[in-house]
């Protein structure tokens, strides 16, 4: 495990593997530092939920090392889970009780429960404590679970697709609450989603996963700075020179080309111009575009 003591990472996965009959998580390595939000992005079935289940001790990995808040998982999952708030799109509260019952139950289980904050969240999320949880809509259910996780004031929030099914207002409210959590610099969030917009808004770190493998992990600014799309015009019969970091070239061989790179520097455009091309436009890319390009490039590389 790399620089464990120095980094004091809240989440550390090192060479984690898990095999199912039709899916395999392979050599997963990632770290989340205190006070950071990591956006964990991948298409459906990429391995996000499996990774999170391993982190929570629900599923045992076949190989590798997992630590949450310094505790090895699954052996010390009890100690780790005392300080982890977990919400999943696939999770539901106990159907035979009200939200108030859940609040009382969670409050009795965690000494750090903040009743005042819970009341504030009740109002902010427009939830009624006397309502039986089985009568809650999907959006209300997600908000209720977020309330129960947030009001415990955990050191680490693990959120598996928490925005799924929320309306735009609820998404905004939830993101605002998550940002609030980060005011305390010792708290961290792992936030999985296949919706890049939410992740882009709040994350410091981005990790892409596809088909059971981590394909890229870096801080958000580095991602956004490195990736560009260059629109080039070529002279008749002109050929684009090969440059490192070029992920995709569209329209190669024609008069105009679109080059996607993950290693952009101002010198890249200049090098194309030296080769006879004219740089018409250099476009920054959204996280969604970067994600799609990363996934497609990774799949192409694996096939090759």
């Amino acid at each position, binding site marked *: 495990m790399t620089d464990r003591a120095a980094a004091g990472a809240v989440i550390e996965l090192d060479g984690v593997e898990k095999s199912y009959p039709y899916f395999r998580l392979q050599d997963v390595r990632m770290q989340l530092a205190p006070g950071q939000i990591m956006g964990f992005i991948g298409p459906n079935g990429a391995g996000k939920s499996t990774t999170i*289940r391993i982190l*929570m*001790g*629900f*599923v*045992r990995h076949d190989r590798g090392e997992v630590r949450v808040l310094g505790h090895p998982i*699954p052996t010390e*999952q*009890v*100690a780790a*889970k*005392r300080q*982890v708030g*977990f919400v*999943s799109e*696939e*999770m*539901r*509260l*106990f*159907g*035979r*009780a009200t939200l108030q019952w859940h609040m009382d*139950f969670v409050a*009795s*289980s*965690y000494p750090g429960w903040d009743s005042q904050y819970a009341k504030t969240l009740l109002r902010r999320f427009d939830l009624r404590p006397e309502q039986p949880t089985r009568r809650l809509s999907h959006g209300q259910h997600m908000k209720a*679970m977020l309330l129960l996780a947030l009001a415990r004031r955990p050191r680490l929030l693990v959120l598996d697709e928490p925005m799924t099914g929320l309306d735009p207002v609820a998404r905004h409210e939830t993101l605002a609450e998550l940002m609030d959590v980060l005011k305390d610099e010792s708290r961290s969030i792992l936030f999985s989603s296949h919706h890049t917009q939410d992740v882009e808004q709040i994350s410091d770190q981005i990790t892409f996963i596809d088909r059971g493998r981590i394909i890229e992990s870096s801080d958000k600014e580095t991602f956004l700075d490195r990736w560009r799309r260059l629109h080039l015009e070529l002279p008749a019969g002109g050929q684009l020179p090969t440059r490192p970091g070029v992920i995709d070239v569209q329209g190669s061989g024609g008069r105009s080309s679109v080059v996607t790179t993950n290693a952009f520097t101002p010198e890249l455009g200049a090098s194309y111009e030296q080769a006879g091309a004219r740089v018409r436009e250099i476009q920054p890319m959204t996280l969604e575009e970067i994600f799609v390009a990363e996934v497609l490039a990774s799949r192409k590389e694996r096939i090759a």
Partner: protein
Amino acid sequence: MSGSMLWRLVRKDLYFNRGLTAGAIVIGLAALALMSFGDAAGNTALILLVTAVVIQGVFVCMGSIAGERKEKALSFGLSFPISTGQYMAAKAIAAITSFLVPWFAIALGGLIELTIAPHAHGLGLLPVSVVTALFLLDEFCLILAITLCTDSEAWANVTIVWISTSIAFFFNFILRIGSIYANLSSPRAVWSPAVIAILAVEVGVLVLIAALVSYRLARQRDFI
């Protein structure tokens, strides 16, 4: 803290199962009271009593264990500071307690019925009653084991069908044993070798189920 968390989760399930537990006690004791109104009422009461115990046991397991998994509340439960093994232990303890409370209440009521009630028949029925009570406990432990160890609805349904049909076979079997049938009206309890053998098999089944469940859960790697 995880020990207290285990008991908190047990109390939670007992709270959720309280309606079923109370219902089984009320129906069971009502059935025992009905037995004093002659043979015809007694037969109806026996069916009612057995049905109440069996249905309560099945509902407890299907509701608090299989239902929790089906309704996706298992991951919420597992997210509390408790190990997966302790969580399963809490489910088992709560389900067994929810079943044993009416089971003991009815057994006690039955003992009173057989011994000190004004219309007491004598203790001749006691061995059959004990054999039947243990058989129902075996059946409960079977459905409990299935719901704890598998998330297969098909297996649960097969077990429920087995439970509902095996009761008739069970009564048919024990009442065909001469040494048992001959002593039903006896004023004292006769613990014949046949009764002892059946009790031994029933206890053996309980031990076997407990051992298999412990072995299976100890080896289980994935809980969701």
